[in-house]
């Protein structure tokens, strides 16, 4: 549906035994199924993971296949459950802890920051914490201030954590498998609006390695680096820009930490312009970090400093009413306008006249 994952064409996907179109959510479920079958130490838990809805379908069928010892719901208790996951991970298991909202992870910060992130270092390698924390974010869709936050930069700040936010089905599956096999705590950010988007996904098991950005589409005029669902908006913005003869290069970092700054800098060396579109606030955010690193790396290499701009959430709490919500988020048209201005100069204003139907228009909830 929607854009049919045109960004990742069949031939782009490394497939030895074939691919097929499946939804992001099904790709996630397949990752759990394959990894749990491969490794008996993997278990999945969190509120509602074993109910009839199965976290928007992402955990459906796992209970029947792997049993209640390995797929189980929990009391809310986000703080203690995070500690439980850490304890089990230290004991040699590989837990996947699920939160249906990223906002709830604020209740887990002590365990994640003080224990999960630090144990391997502080104990000089005596223990490892192979933990995946799945967390769903979403464009608000009327959910307001405490059901729509994307807090990835909080976690990027902490040594010892890894942070990934795949934007398509192929990367969702590959990143999840990589996260489960990783010996570190990984914060795995899934955007709710991506769940229904189809993409070509290999049947076989594979890893999408962290710290390697993906050039989604090539272009010479401006680099647009977008995070999570903003990749979809950026790909639509590229279409708009093509109608006025501008070729944008779209990059998805996939993993926010570790961050592949090389791929970004290479692209920027070609285009001279970088528009960073975060799926979050800008202040002290992922965009600030990317901007700083691009600047530092260009200086280090003796390259010209590119023209850099940033877009992201309005610096407000997210409102619920649609008109304000629409103004809160960047979209393909505002992204295209900004990129146009960067290419043509500040005196040149342009806005695409219409937009294709997007995920949020088609979304009927509930979340």
């Amino acid at each position, binding site marked *: 549906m929607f854009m049919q994952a045109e960004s990742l064409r069949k031939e782009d996907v490394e497939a030895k035994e074939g691919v097929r179109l499946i939804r992001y959510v099904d790709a996630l479920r397949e990752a759990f199924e394959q990894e749990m079958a491969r490794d008996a130490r993997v*278990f999945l838990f969190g509120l509602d993971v074993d109910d009839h809805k199965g976290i928007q379908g992402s955990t459906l069928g796992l209970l029947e296949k792997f049993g209640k*010892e390995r797929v189980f719901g*929990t*009391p809310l*208790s986000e*703080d*203690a*459950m*995070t*500690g*439980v*996951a*850490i*304890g*089990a*991970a*230290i*004991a*040699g*298991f590989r837990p996947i802890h699920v939160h249906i909202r990223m906002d709830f992870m604020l209740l887990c910060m*002590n*365990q994640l920051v*003080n*224990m999960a992130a630090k*144990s*391997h*270092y*502080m*104990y*000089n*390698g*005596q*223990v*490892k*914490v*192979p933990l995946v924390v799945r967390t769903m974010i979403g464009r608000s869709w009327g959910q307001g201030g405490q059901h729509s936050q994307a807090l990835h930069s909080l976690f990027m700040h902490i*040594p*010892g954590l*890894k942070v990934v936010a795949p934007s398509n089905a192929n990367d969702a599956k590959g990143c999840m498998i990589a996260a489960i096999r990783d*010996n*570190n705590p990984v914060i795995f950010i899934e955007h709710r609006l991506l769940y229904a988007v189809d993409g070509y996904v290999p049947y076989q098991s594979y890893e999408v390695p962290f710290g390697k950005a993906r050039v989604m589409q090539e272009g010479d005029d401006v680099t647009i680096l977008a995070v999570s669902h903003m990749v979809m908006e950026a790909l639509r913005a590229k279409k708009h820009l093509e109608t006025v003869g501008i070729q944008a290069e779209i990059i998805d970092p996939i993993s926010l930490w570790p961050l592949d700054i090389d791929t970004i800098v290479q692209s920027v060396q070609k285009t001279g312009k970088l528009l960073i579109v975060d799926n979050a606030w800008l202040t002290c955010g992922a965009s600030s970090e990317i901007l700083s690193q691009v600047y530092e790396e260009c200086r280090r290499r003796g390259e010209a400093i590119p023209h850099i701009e940033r877009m992201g959430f309005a610096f407000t709490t997210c409102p619920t009413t649609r008109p304000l919500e629409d103004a809160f988020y960047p979209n393909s048209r505002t992204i295209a306008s900004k990129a146009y201005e960067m290419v043509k100069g500040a005196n040149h204003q342009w806005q695409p006249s219409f937009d294709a139907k997007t995920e949020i228009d088609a979304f009927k909830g509930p979340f």
Partner: protein
Amino acid sequence: MYTEELVAHLYKRMSLIRRFELRLAEIYHTDAVKSPVHLSVGQEAIAVAACDPLEKDDIVSNTYRCHATYIAKGGDLNAMMAELYGKRTGCAGGKAGSMHLIDMENGILGASAVVGTTIPVATGYAMAMKMEAGTTKKQRVTVAFFGDGGTEEGCFYESLNFASLHQLPIIYLCENNRLAIHTPLEKRWAKDNLCERVKSFGIETHKITDGDVFTIRDTVARAVKQIRQSGKGPVFLECDTYRWLEHVGPRDDHSDHYRDLETYQQWQDNDQIKRLGEMLDEVTRKRLDNEITDEILKAEKFAEESPYPAAEELYAHVYAS
């Protein structure tokens, strides 16, 4: 009813902890120990009694006041002293210090400087023990140590609920010294009824008020046996005790007048090290005392002679491979 061997063993462990810590207090002014120390002097009996019935592969989790439990569970003394000195040979390579002693080889899960934080981690470790028991055919046991302050954290109640729900093989042990830094329990608890509260989660509780090392040991031993045989816990113990020294640092701070000298006197009269020492014949006691002296001197020498970590080690172990 207690064998001389047991008395000697408990005496030696308790006295080793006390004298190790008093030695730390003695040398603290030299700044050789570049780390805050939260000493357990006066509280040794609980750690020793609770660890005695455990096997090497059973697990204890600790608070930042973790010297006693580390030594009681059989943690490497040289590595401990070296850690306090910030040396490369320390139990955490000099990266953790006094508040985070760890020795996984001997079942010491580490400790947190943030009160209550290790309680759910220990609970998770116990869950793993339950999960693995089907395959290993051996039920290991976790003992989570924490203070009265730890029971004021939300994660304590969250953990009790979860452990009781899943009947996890864990013993929760509250060392109640009635102080959170300097704030007495009376200013912190609406009701002094911890065991009642815990019991309401469907958990077996025991309250031991007199600090008797044998009573604590026997209670823990029964709990361990029960959990090992049935695979089911948890069990909760509240053990009253008294912190002889200041919250952090080497000093006796009774001159600060925030606590009652009479209570201190009662706990000194009830000192389990003195009591068990008197139960031993003089020759045995002297032999044990000499062994303790040797072990402490050896640890000190080991720490002094060990190198500091090289600067490159700063970036080792940020991420696991």
